[in-house]
């Protein structure tokens, strides 16, 4: 009876390490934000605060897929390439057919909706290639997705002859990426990002497949022996990640009304960095989407205040590097302190 009482009292009392780290990183964010408000002119303005989140919607959407894959113990470096590919394809598919002497102005002349659907299907194709090599043939994910990263961007370059496709596009092409909620400057893309983050949060915390992701990352062999179909789940995660990157590619192409083959260079690293900043373990089994979101805002605060302080943009990479190091050291320190 006594032991029962003891269990009851302590159940749930202990914060999980994930929640602890997310809270810790929120603390880091508040401190950084306070510092930025103090030294950077106009940083405290509401519009600027809003921009911190809205200017990064694409990294956050990518971060969702990348975070879940990291939790499962796998990388996805192909997301930047998929953005370029889907952007270029969506443009190519709905450019008018035989309208110009210029090959880059001629497309397939499909309706926009069909063009988008086909482009997303191609994104899923890249995800399927990832899944086949990683889940079926057990090739390390970093190798496979570096391959598909170049493959996807390479196809984009072939279709755009190394440049972009921005002529003879129907007007509808430029709508979805540019319209904002009435009366505000918040774009549809940002709304989509928020919806996806909430959906990902629910998936992670409350569903069986969400739990499966952690189990596979914590111990793939034990997961298999516990009856989890590991390959099937990884396939699902890679397809999801590719689809999210594809959606991002469509939205970005629409925003600029062009399919650009060099779009989203290095975004795969940004997505990785915000996940790690948010406390996701590179070894798998640990992390959260909420943490990734906080990580993205931290990175945004730092880069924005650098710009506000009139630091030359050349310093952006160095600054990102330093922030990443400090944040990850801080996390290690906090987690080690907690163990005792």
């Amino acid at each position, binding site marked *: 009876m006594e032991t029962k009482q003891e269990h009851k009292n*302590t159940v749930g*009392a202990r914060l999980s390490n994930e929640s602890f780290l997310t809270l810790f990183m929120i603390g880091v964010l508040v401190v950084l934000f306070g510092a930025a408000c103090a030294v950077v002119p106009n940083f405290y303005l509401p519009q600027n605060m809003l921009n911190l989140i809205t200017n990064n919607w694409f990294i956050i959407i990518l971060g969702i897929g990348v975070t879940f894959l990291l939790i499962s113990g796998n990388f996805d470096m192909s997301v930047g390439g998929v953005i370029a590919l889907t952007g270029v394809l969506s443009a190519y598919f709905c450019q008018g057919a035989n309208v110009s002497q210029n090959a880059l102005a001629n497309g397939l002349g499909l309706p926009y909706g069909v063009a988008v659907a086909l482009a997303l299907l191609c994104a899923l194709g890249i995800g399927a290639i990832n899944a086949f090599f990683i889940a079926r043939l057990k090739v390390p994910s970093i190798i496979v997705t570096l391959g598909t990263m170049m493959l996807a961007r390479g196809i984009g370059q072939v279709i755009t002859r190394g440049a972009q496709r921005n002529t003879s596009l129907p007007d509808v092409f430029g709508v979805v990426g540019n319209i904002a909620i009435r009366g505000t400057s918040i774009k549809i893309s940002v709304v989509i990002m928020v919806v996806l983050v909430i959906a990902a949060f629910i998936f992670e915390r409350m569903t069986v*497949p969400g739990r499966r992701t952690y*189990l596979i990352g*914590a*111990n793939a062999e*034990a997961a298999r*022996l516990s009856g989890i179909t590991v390959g099937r789940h990884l396939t699902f995660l890679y397809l999801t990640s590719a689809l999210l990157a594809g959606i991002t590619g469509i939205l970005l192409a629409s925003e600029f009304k062009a399919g650009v083959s060099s779009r989203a260079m290095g975004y795969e690293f940004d997505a990785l960095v915000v996940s790690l900043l948010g406390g996701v373990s590179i070894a798998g089994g640990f992390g959260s989407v909420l943490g990734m979101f906080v990580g993205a805002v931290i990175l945004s605060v730092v880069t924005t205040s650098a710009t506000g302080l009139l630091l030359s943009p050349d310093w952006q990479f160095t600054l990102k590097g330093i922030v990443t190091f400090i944040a990850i050291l801080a996390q290690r320190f906090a987690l080690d302190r907690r163990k005792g």
Partner: protein
Amino acid sequence: MKLTDNVLEIRDLVKDFPSVRAVNNVSFDIKRNSVHCLVGENGAGKSTLIKILTGAYARSGGKILLNGKEYSPHSTKDAKDKGISTLFQELNVVDQLTVAENLTLGMEDTTFGFLRKTDKINKMVSVMNSLEPSIRPRQLVSSLSVAKKQIVEIAKAVATESDIIIMDEPTAAISESEIARLFKIVKGLRERNVTVIYISHRLDEIFELGDYVTVMRDGKHIDTKPVAEIQDRSELIRMMIGKTVFEAYTPKKDPSQETILQVRNLSNHKLNDISFEVKKGEIAGFYGLVGAGKTELARAIYGVDEYEGEILFKGQKLHPSPNKVIEAGIALVPEERRSQGLFTILTIRGNVPVMNMGKVSRHGFINAAQERQVTLEYIEKLRIATNSTEKEVIKLSGGNQQKVVFSKCLFADADLLMLDEPTRGIDVGAKSEIYGIIRRLAEEGKSILIFSSELPEIMNICDRIHLLYDGNLKASLTNGYDIDSEKIIHIVTGGA
């Protein structure tokens, strides 16, 4: 230099952790050139004591004298330099290097950072040759069995003139014949001026090997005695846990006639034409040496490894894939609990329900309250020592970890449980609890397959005993008063 009679003297040793005193005023001596056994349940404090001796932990108080001199190592390497080497369960050899390279690893002679061949290696190799001539110096360590890797480590310790070699459960993962060879070497170490501190859960080994035995319980030193003065196992067990737990097998009164599992002509890369049946409520044991095919048989039935032949469960052919096998009503407690059974970085709550998430979820959404309730139920039912469902499994002791694996499999609602080495590396108390659980399950009508390389375990709880040798099922016996353990040993070692 005159050598003291005692190679090691431990005086009032104390080690405090934030919430517990793991070693509590322990004092005893270890005689030079003896085999000194250290026994106690998990949590008795022997691991902590060893970690202090090897420099992994700093003591909180007390004194240790090595050869009469104050000894306080600050790392494993420092301990080694001062004369105490350790044979850890996780062996400290590098698979990709040769035996000779391993022997000199960390003490290579170099010129400007380049390796130089010197006499050191010859000395090492000659020591190893004298211990075990069949190991060749140019052989890759990855080609050696676990037992031979241990011998390489022992050779290294002997050649570097260690005063003491600590052996932590060296027989846990090696076969009977290899154990015999290891024992011969350990006994021979006395003549080489080496003292052995020997830790094992297999009590028979202590009687065979030990000169002295120290018993610890709850962090305290209970007694140190010459082994010759101890009457039998049960006296030792009484000292360890304060009560007798050894129970002998009692045959079942009315065994069920209903067949639940039929295995017909099962063959694969390791197994050769194996056929047997298991009845409802029966505890069937598979006994054989390491490499006889026990784990392979379990993995084939579970659908992990490919096979030819037929397996019928409740009259239905089993689809060879773990998720289908679990759905059909079979669960496996795997051989390696950390790498195959548990999600050690997750909490107990994260582990217990994984094999049957459908039971704690609806339309794919997890019912957190129900999940916690179920976890609490199993914590109480199997008496898992924890103060919270939210404790990470890695922080539990071996016995409690194994109970979490059991909880996982029981929650799967299986009618047939396969247990591969269910009590490996677990202390005596937790062992007898696990046997209790197994018996209770069989009484509830569940069928159990036990795959074990410990004969007492098989003879204590199994109704039927199947003997494996080199992938073949050699004999199937019904357990009873007249069962002959010598005959069993004869069969599993290859006798006709």
